[in-house]
Every structure is written in C-alpha cells, then in structure tokens.
C-alpha cells in the first residue's frame, strides 16, 4: 500500500461524495442544500485539481480536464450564491437555489467521470 495513492483516491472520492451530498435533495428546497456543504465540496475539488497536476499521460490529461470542469462549475455555483444571497440572511429564492444546485449537479457529473477514470486507471494497472 502506498500512502500517496491512498491520499489521491481519498481526495478524488471525497470531492465526488461531498458534491453529491450538496446536490442531493429537492432542487429548490433550501433545507436540502447547505452552504457549508458547497464550501467543503469546492475546497476538496481545488485540492483534487492540484493533486492531478503534472501527469503527462493521455488519461492524466482527461483526468485533469474533468477536475477543472468540476471546479469551474462549483466556482460558478459559489458566485451565484454570493450574488443572489439575500442581504441580511434569510432563505434563498427558489430560482437562485435551483441554478446553484444545477451548476453543482454539473460538477457532480464531472466528478463522476473523474472517479470512473480513476477506477479504470487502477484496474488496467498490471501487477
């Protein structure tokens, strides 16, 4: 067992699971989507992108691209949250929340691709 590989798989899986946790639930139901979940998903996705840096293989390039897509979608969701959050607190409007969640759902798709690539890459390794 290699600690580096454990950390790598851990971060990529965590990025996908956190993202899923944020998206899961009714798309316009404010009770199902918490800002901390989005924050955590974005942070872990950032770390995942940094971890994927510098792999020069073809599969590494696709991996890197999927990570960047996920990060872009999550950053979009965070910006929408920032601009559309009502001043002085209070619940999000339905429209704002659905666009945030749909952006995060896009990120989830990219994260799933990332996880699939990681699994494929692992299984084709010969020992």
């Amino acid at each position, binding site marked *: 067992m290699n600690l580096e590989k454990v950390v790598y798989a851990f971060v990529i899986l965590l990025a996908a699971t956190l993202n899923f946790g944020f998206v899961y639930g009714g798309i316009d139901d404010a009770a199902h989507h918490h800002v901390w979940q989005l924050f955590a998903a974005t942070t872990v996705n950032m*770390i995942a992108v*940094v971890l994927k840096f510098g792999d020069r293989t073809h599969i590494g390039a696709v991996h890197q691209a999927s990570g960047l897509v996920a990060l872009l979608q999550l950053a979009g969701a965070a910006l929408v949250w920032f601009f559309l959050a009502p001043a002085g607190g209070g619940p999000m409007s339905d429209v704002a929340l659905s666009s945030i969640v749909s952006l995060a759902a896009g990120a989830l798709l990219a994260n799933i691709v990332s996880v699939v690539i990681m699994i494929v890459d692992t299984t084709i390794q010969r020992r």
Partner: protein
Amino acid sequence: MQSVFLLSIRRLRAPLILIILVFAFSTVGLTLIPGIDPAGRPWHMTIFEAVYFVAYTATTIGFGEIPYPFTDQQRLFVTVIIYLSVIGWAYLLGSILSIAQDKAFQHAMVSARFRRSVSGLREPFYLVCGLGETGLTVVRVLDHLGTRFTAIDRDEHRVQALEIEALSLDAPVLTADVRSPETLSSAGLLKPECMGVLALCNDDEANLAIAISACLLRPNLPVISRANSPQVAASMAALGTYRVISPSHEFGEHLELAMRAPDTHRLLGWLTSTPGSYLPPSLPPRIPVAPGHWIVCGYGRYGTQVVAAVQRGGFNATIIDPAGLQVAGLRCIRGTGTGAAELREAGVETASGIFGGTDDDTANLAIAIAARRLNPNIFIILRQNLQSSSVLFTKFGADMTMVTSQIIATECIAVLRTPLLAAFLDLTRRKDDLWAYSLAESLRDLLGDEAPSFWSFAIEAGEAPGLLDAMARVAGPVRAGDLSRSAQARQDRVPCMALLLVRGTQTVELPDDDFPLEAGDRLLFAGRRSAEDNQVLVRRNANVAAYVLGERRAAEGWVAEGGGDGGEVGVEAVMVSRQLFRPVDRLLSGVHDRAGSDGLTRSR
C-alpha cells in the same frame, strides 16, 4: 515548454495544497467564531467576508479588522491563522525559487526557448556546430553578410561568449552535445529553411558524427566540415560531404601558391578576406625562390605539409623536431628550435626560410626571434595556435602567419557566400601571376581597395523575372555589360564586374561587356553593395530592365510621351517603379555624372 510548466507545477503540489487547507481552515474558523457589531448584537462573518479577510491578511496586505472591530476570541484565532498562512506562503515561495534555480529546469527553459526561436525561423539559415575561434569567426562574418544561423556548442562558456557578442541579428544558441542527432534536429536540421551544416568543432569525431547525422537525416544538404586528420577527412569525403576543410592541407596549398604565384595569392587573399578588409599593396615578393633550403621546426601535420610544399617548390628541407624523428630524404635534428645551437646546426645563416610550427605559441615566437637574430633576411612563417596571442604575432610581424581558425573560416565563407564564388576561386587558383595581377588591378580601379561583395543569380523566372521579361521584348542581343548599367542613367556604370558565367556545362570566366546573354545563364558578380541593389532592381522590375537594356518605348509607357533624353526618362521610370516596388533611396540619392554619349562611364 509546456512539459516544463507541467513538471514544475507538479513540484508545487504540496505547497499549493497546504495553502488551500490553510485558507479553508481559516475561513471556516472565522465564520464560526461570533463577533459583536457596534450595536452590541452577536454577529457572524459570511463565508465571503472570511475569505476576503484571510486573503488580505495572509498576503500581508492587512486592511485591518473589517467590517467591525474583532472580539478577543476572534483576535486569538486570527493570531493563529497569521502564522499558518505565513508558513504556507513561505513554503510556496521557497519551492518556486528552488525550482527556478534548478539547473535541469533552467536548461529545460533555455532549450524550450531555443526550439521555439528555431521553429520560428522563416528565413534560410545555416546550422553552425562548434563555437570555438573558428566558429566565432564564421558566425561574425555570417552576421555581417546578413545571413541567419543557429549555433550549438557543448561548452557553456563559448555559448555565453557568443551571447554577449554584438551581433546584428538575434541568433538562437544552445549548449548541448553536438553529436546527438536530437540536438541537431532541435537546431533546425530538418527544417526546409536550413541551407547547410557547418561542423567546426575542434574534435574530429564530433565533426564526423555531425556529418553522418546530416547525411542520413537530410541527404543532399551541403555539409561543410573541418577535419584535422586525413583519415577523418577521407571518411567525410566518402559520406559525400559537400566540402571538407583540413587546415594543414589548406595551409600547404596556400604556401605553395604563395611561392608559385605571389600575385594570385594576394588576389585570393583579398577576395576571400572578411568584409571590410583592404587589398594589400603589391610589394616585390619577399618569398624566396629556389634553390635554397628551409628549416621546419615541428614535424606535425602542418610541418609535413610545409615540407611537401617547399620540396615541390624546389627547396631542400631540414626538420627540427623534439621527438627526434628520422624522415628519409630529410636532414633531421633533435630539438625544439628555440636554441641558437640547433638553428646553427640546421644552417640558419644560409637558409631561405624557416617555419615555426609547433603547437606552442611561445615556442614558435622564440624560434622566430632567434632565427631573425641569426639571419635578418630569413623568410619566416609562423603558426599561431591561439587567437589570444595575436598581439604578439602582429608585433613580431612574420612574413606569413597562419592561424588555423582563420584558414578554416576563410574557406568556409568562400564556400558559403554565394554559389558560384567557390568555382571562381578554384579557377583563380590555377591561374598565373599576370592574369591575377591584371584582374586585381581592374577590380581595384572599378571598386576601390575594400574587399568586394559577391552575388550570383540565374536569369530565370524565379530570380530575375523583370530581366527575363524585358529580354523577351528587346530586339537584339542582351550583353553582359548591360547588367552593369545604372537604373537611373543607363549610360552610367555601377561599380560591379561579372566574374563568371555558367551556361549549362560551359563556363566563361570574366565575360566582357559585349558577351551576349541568354535565358538560363548563371552569373557571378563582384562589386559594391549599391551596385547589387541596382541590379536587384533591374532583375525584378521589367520596366527598369527594359530601360537599362535600351528599349525606350517600354520605359516611356509610364511617363508623358516625348521629351528628355534617355537619362531623364530613366529617372522617372525609377521614380514610378519606386512607388510600385520598393524604396531605392540609396540609388536615387547618388550624384551621377551624366555623359552625353551612350557609352558606359564610371561613377562611384
């Protein structure tokens, strides 16, 4: 370049992740710790406010406690995150600096830049391998002639020496192993713009490796290579190398020519000298005539060639060699030649000439000084090994000084300058003194003392479309002299002279002004740069060519009918073509002596 970027960012993964984690931790902490607003109510930072605060605190901007003054609880936490973020940034900056100072990284950056600038070259260029004294001399002349080049050398110091050289064009230079084919292709060997490879390393094996790579990767590409030993020279010739220069052999030939035909030697020296040098005065030759005897100190590659040359010239030779070699048919003395006793034994008082040819500059000078003291009239030839000793050699003033790098560079440039020049120089070498003397004098009358420029072209659609067009229209034969006519006033002559004309397999040396030209002829000219510009105009612009060839109607087509003699029409034709074609300020600004007759007059 891209891979360099990716590799370096890969080494920044740890500090980047640390910074992300510090930011996340600080943001979460600041958001969770309650503050108090001015009205005394508890208050929580939003995520955005927290990120903003961490960003300016971590980067030491420090805008202060916004939006409200912090509580002590908050301040305690901020103290912690300040230290954390400082550690994160210090780690990141340290990693970036260590990558930037990494030798491998720097080399990767430099080679990437080199590759980029080579692949960006869109003009014809030469690939120069080896930047020793020879390479540097060649590169300087190439630069002076406005020819582009790329250069590689194994030695970093030599590459740096070229980088600080004041060259007019920015040339791509790289420190790399010249033997590797990969290096050669990164220096542009495979590019169609590469006109030739110059293998000028000090090391024969490296030159041979370059010649082999070039021969296999780019068959038919001219390779000009230096070869010190005859074996390597033979291998290169077998590869089909375009020109193999072996300095000792070259020098032997020089010496022989200088003895046989001093004026031919003088003419060749002038024609092949670096641009901007002057024709030496034709002095009564000092070089001794047979019979007599020569002393050759140092019987190495050069000594052998000198002995062979003086023997062919009808002299006897005595060799002085520290190894005490015994060569059949020669008097051999053991020693260095620096001592008076050895020189006397070799008969220095009665000798015609002496060659100081060891591979030590100090020893060569010592030999020469001793010999001159013992026999003030002796003819002295010295071998100078290093460019750095040139002050001493100039001061001593030997009758002939041979500098290896200079010999190779001269040969190289003669081959490179323009296609027909090498053929003309070969032809000159076989000529006698009188022919060379008269050519030198007529060239000097026409062009002045400064070494001329050379150019060559073929009367074909690609190189001389205007001229070809005009030749088809003009009735009667077109003569070689017509190409020396000024585009402003056709009766004036621009300072240039046709040296060689090649038609199919036939070669005409020094075609005179009445020689009829045909389409497809290839011509070599010597002259001043201004004359070349003039000729370029004639070659490219059909109307100028028609005027120069003497067809009035075509030239007048551009301007009002009637009036003026040929000369004025010519000026207007050039003025019109100037707008259409390209600036010829230099041509137009010259004051020309207009003779009334149609004959050629000279103007400088």
